């Protein structure tokens, strides 16, 4: 089985770009990825594209061919949809494609256009990641679903909204200097605490923004990297995926995310590492409580301990395990179908020393990305390591 290298990555600005189609956004990110990789587009053998709500936002299905066309690539191209984990799952498919010898060069990423819809319609579109019959028709929104998990967490483990505000403050701090981030604005705990409610106990600063953007990367086999003398010091050494029952009401517990536990365990075993070996992580903080659940599911913290990790300084840029040095979904933004791929792009740069926050993790060799769909009914986890 060949090892998979990250040859290059590209991102658009994450932000409010309602006039830009997802195909145009992906064209920009993909072009940047090919240039960064120094790989000829003719060498790309397959395209893996993540997108969640194209039908609702752009009246566009069948986006795989469009994604390849946007890059002038003549190769099989498939769209992957797993809600907010769409491009994390696409990355996993791309990794497996290279590993099993089907291809030496693949392009993988995702794009999402969201701000062209009014907020209520975007809320409606995001809600379809939940169970339509038993959740959406009962009035559950996407923030509302995480609010139920947060409420259950408080009930079982304690913790406070103020603990969660520290996660938001940390991720905003990390986004300062990230030219791709939607917010490059410091916030304080008081501001987060006083923000208006979205779905109590979730308030505005607990929630990621609505974002347009795209991410892409070129993955190559070890042998291709050597033959073409590529500067590709980072490898994806572990991949894992997990699923859970779609509706919260059908799960045994509301305060754990078994799909992420499974994906993490599989990815760590695949890479031959333990949670203790991990130097930094990019996790799916669509809401502040989601970051707490993620770092617990990955085994970095015991259940009930994740919520105050940022407050204790353990997951800040200067902590033992920096989490979301990109700014996370919270401050960098969350163009749903692009998020999983963008986490991997950011992580590769962090480990390669080319990220604005690389100095915070100068000696780091192992990073983990965690991309969750819906209320974590889908999760893709990847392990990235410095191999050169």
């Amino acid at each position, binding site marked *: 089985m060949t090892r998979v290298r990250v040859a290059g990555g590209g991102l658009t600005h994450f932000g409010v770009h309602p006039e830009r189609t997802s195909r145009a956004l992906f064209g920009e990110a993909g072009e940047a990825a090919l240039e960064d990789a120094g790989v000829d587009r003719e060498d790309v053998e397959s395209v893996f594209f993540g997108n969640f709500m194209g039908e609702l936002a752009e009246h566009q299905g069948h986006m795989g061919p469009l994604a390849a066309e946007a890059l002038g690539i003549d190769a099989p191209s498939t769209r992957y949809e797993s809600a907010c984990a769409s491009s994390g799952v696409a990355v996993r498919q791309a990794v497996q494609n290279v590993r099993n010898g089907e291809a030496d060069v693949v392009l993988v990423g995702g794009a999402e256009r969201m701000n062209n819809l009014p907020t209520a319609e975007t809320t409606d579109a995001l809600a379809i990641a939940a169970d339509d019959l038993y959740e959406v028709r009962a009035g559950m929104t996407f923030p509302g679903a995480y609010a*139920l998990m947060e409420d259950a967490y408080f009930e079982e483990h304690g913790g406070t909204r103020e603990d969660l505000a520290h996660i938001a403050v940390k991720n905003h701090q990390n986004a300062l200097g990230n030219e791709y981030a939607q917010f490059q604005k410091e916030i304080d705990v008081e501001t987060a605490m006083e923000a208006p409610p979205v*779905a109590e106990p979730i308030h505005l600063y607990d929630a990621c923004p609505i974002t347009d953007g795209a991410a892409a990367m070129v993955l190559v086999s070890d042998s291709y990297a050597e033959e073409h003398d590529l500067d590709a010091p980072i490898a994806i050494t572990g991949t894992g995926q997990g699923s859970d029952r779609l509706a919260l009401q059908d799960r045994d517990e509301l305060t754990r995310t078994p799909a992420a536990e499974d994906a993490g365990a599989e990815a760590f075993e695949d890479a031959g590492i333990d949670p203790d070996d991990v130097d930094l992580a990019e996790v799916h903080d669509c809401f502040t409580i989601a970051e707490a659940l993620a770092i617990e599911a990955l085994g970095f913290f015991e259940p009930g301990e994740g919520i105050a990790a940022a407050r204790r300084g353990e997951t800040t840029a200067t902590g033992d395990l920096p989490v979301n040095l990109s700014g996370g979904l919270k401050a960098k933004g969350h163009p749903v179908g692009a998020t999983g791929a963008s986490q991997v792009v950011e992580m590769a740069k962090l480990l390669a020393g080319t990220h604005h926050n690389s100095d915070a993790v100068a000696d780091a060799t192992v990073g983990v990305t965690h991309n969750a769909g819906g209320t974590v009914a889908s999760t893709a986890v990847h392990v990235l390591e410095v191999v050169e």
Partner: protein
Amino acid sequence: MSDEPARDAGYDDFLDAIAEGEPYYLECPEGHGSLPPRQVCPDCGASELSESELPEVGTIVAHNVVHVPTPRFLDDTPYATAIVDFGPVNVTGQVRGLDPQDVENGQDVTITIGETETDGDRLVVFEPV
């Protein structure tokens, strides 16, 4: 083909049963509970599913108060949604008969069918015992 939206078999039957005061859940030979539509038990795959009576009273295990709704609930905010434990199954619905801010976990409720303020669509509603 008709211009009327089709029923969702199983789900709409479940709501009808609640409205008639005879709510049920699906039970497999192993005793796992689930809600329709189901071909097999999601826990064990058993295909012999029978309708069993849903316990009359359930307990709220988690709740929220929604302020930013989807279009179908624009005139309904703020409202509380809750996940209610009925024993063999949990059910999600809107809590009525209480100020949303007064809803608490541990509260015992019964299940009924209500309509949204916005469009009059029917939905699962919980009322305090």
